């Protein structure tokens, strides 16, 4: 049994059949996981200024860049092991660097509140064993975390839910479109307009307090009735909800207070985003957007977006992430105008514009370690095949060694 690193579910019941040091077949992994485990098609090669070179020269050039930069940002981290992340944070401290990860434009706000214990949460195993009402809000788990419904939430038979989805569980979807998850939640799909989550939450709070909400009264009272009857509920907060209420996030806390039997679960995409958030939170008290000086300073201006717009940074090291593919187009020219170091197993859009590229091993396939699942459980990753590529942890070791 090996662990899949396709998404933040970190399924540890995968069988991999290896032949000639290649994964020939995977069993039990979803399509997304199977594709990741079979390795990347376009492997990254070490390069400097788009010219192929050897890995030692790439590392030397990286050391030059990080030593000479006035203010460097270390970005990415969500596809690295906990060990590599811890070393990355140490490196940021030594360099007085800005450190940020993809949770900065993903689920950072939510995870911060969960780690601050402002929101109740539980483990995925609790959900499997006890949950009877499941709310997918702004999240299409069926596509983003394909095994979420079948492995933990809706379909399995749990200790207290022996009749599974047929009688014991109810799944509700709240979304702006009829996603694949919503298709499974037949009869309990609430379609909302774009950015309509805030209004929906306020109306739901009213309905839960016994008032008659103005907004879609009939459906709202019906939903409030289901939620009130729940013995053990879970709200799976997707990126759709987090984005929509990011200016007024505390209304989610107000809703959670009205629902004492419910737990909040962040629907994390990258497999170890929560790992990085927890490590940085333990170190500094913040989950992302931190600058290390004498002490750690947290400010929104240290997010990758703001840093690039305001030109606060003069170099960037990107580990296992592809911001060029996900950031808004107008700020990409700012990213391309500074030296970029890209550490990744595969060729990505970012690697194509990078000043220096360092290929690394695919974590969970060519190198092992640990990672944190979306519910906060530590999962061991397995090394399945051997390759000549360095794990990102070792690359961090080399950089730490070179600057000290």
């Amino acid at each position: 049994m090996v662990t899949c690193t396709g998404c933040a579910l970190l399924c540890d019941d995968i069988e991999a059949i290896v032949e000639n040091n290649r994964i020939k077949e995977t069993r039990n992994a979803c399509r997304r996981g199977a594709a990741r485990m079979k390795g990347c098609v376009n492997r990254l090669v070490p390069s400097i200024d788009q010219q192929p070179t050897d890995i030692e020269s790439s590392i030397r050039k990286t050391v030059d860049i990080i030593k000479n930069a006035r203010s460097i940002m270390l970005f990415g981290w969500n596809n690295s092991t906990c060990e590599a992340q811890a070393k990355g944070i140490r490196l940021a401290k030594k360099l007085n660097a800005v450190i940020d990860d993809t949770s900065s434009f993903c689920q950072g706000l939510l995870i911060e509140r969960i780690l601050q214990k402002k929101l109740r949460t539980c483990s995925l195993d609790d959900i499997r064993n006890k949950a009877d009402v499941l709310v997918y809000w702004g999240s299409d788990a069926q596509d983003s975390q394909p095994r979420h419904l079948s492995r933990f939430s809706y379909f399995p038979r749990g200790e207290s839910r022996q009749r599974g989805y047929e009688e014991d569980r109810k799944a509700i979807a709240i979304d702006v479109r009829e996603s694949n998850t919503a298709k499974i939640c037949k009869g309990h799909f609430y379609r909302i307009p774009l950015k309509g989550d805030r209004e929906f939450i306020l109306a739901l709070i009213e309905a839960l307090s016994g008032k008659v909400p103005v907004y879609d009264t009939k459906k709202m009272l019906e939903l409030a009735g289901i939620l009130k009857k729940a013995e053990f509920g879970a709200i799976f907060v997707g990126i759709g909800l987090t984005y929509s209420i990011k200016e007024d996030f505390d209304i989610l806390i107000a809703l959670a207070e009205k629902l004492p039997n419910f737990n909040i679960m962040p629907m994390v995409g990258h497999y170890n985003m929560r790992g990085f958030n927890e490590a940085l939170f333990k170190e500094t008290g913040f989950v992302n957007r931190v600058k290390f000086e004498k002490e750690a300073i947290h400010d929104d201006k240290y997010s990758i977006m703001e840093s690039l717009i305001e030109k606060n940074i003069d170099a960037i090291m990107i580990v296992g992430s592809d911001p060029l593919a996900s950031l808004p187009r107008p700020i990409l020219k700012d990213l391309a105008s500074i030296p970029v170091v890209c550490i990744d197993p595969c060729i990505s859009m970012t690697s194509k514009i990078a000043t220096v590229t360092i290929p690394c091993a695919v974590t969970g396939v060519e190198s092992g370690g640990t990672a944190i699942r979306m519910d906060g459980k530590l999962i061991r990753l397995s090394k399945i095949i051997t390759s000549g590529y360095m794990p990102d942890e070792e690359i961090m070791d080399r950089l730490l060694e070179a600057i000290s």
Partner: protein
Amino acid sequence: MVTVMELYQLLPRTNCKKCGESTCMAFAVALLGRKKNVAACTPLLEVNFKPQKEKLESLLLPSAGAEETGLIVHPELCTGCGNCVVACPVDVANDPHGAGMGCAPTNDKVIFKVVDGKVIASNIKECRRFGKSRVLCYACIDPCPTGAIEFV
């Protein structure tokens, strides 16, 4: 999916009984149930029925790879989520501590398995749609959001 009437419209409709069925409609039903082959209808083999024969064969082509119970898995639509593995009542009965709990199947008695990110069906004789006391079970079709599982 193709209907009996669509198949019937393409047959000679002469009720000649050469296929062994009493009417062309009965032959259309047998064709759909994959009990008879198009070649059993000898008048269709004549030259003037060539377009109808080709149309019939193309209509029946999608069900060619079906299991004995009529189960077809479309690999291009399957995402390997495993909803069918966990929802199938036979899988739950045969493997309550593996597939029934959402984990990897622990024995070979299960019907559905995910291999290389796509579902494959085996042990088809265990399916509730198989045999004399078969029932019209929809447990694997309903949880599939992409429509990758079909019965013909």
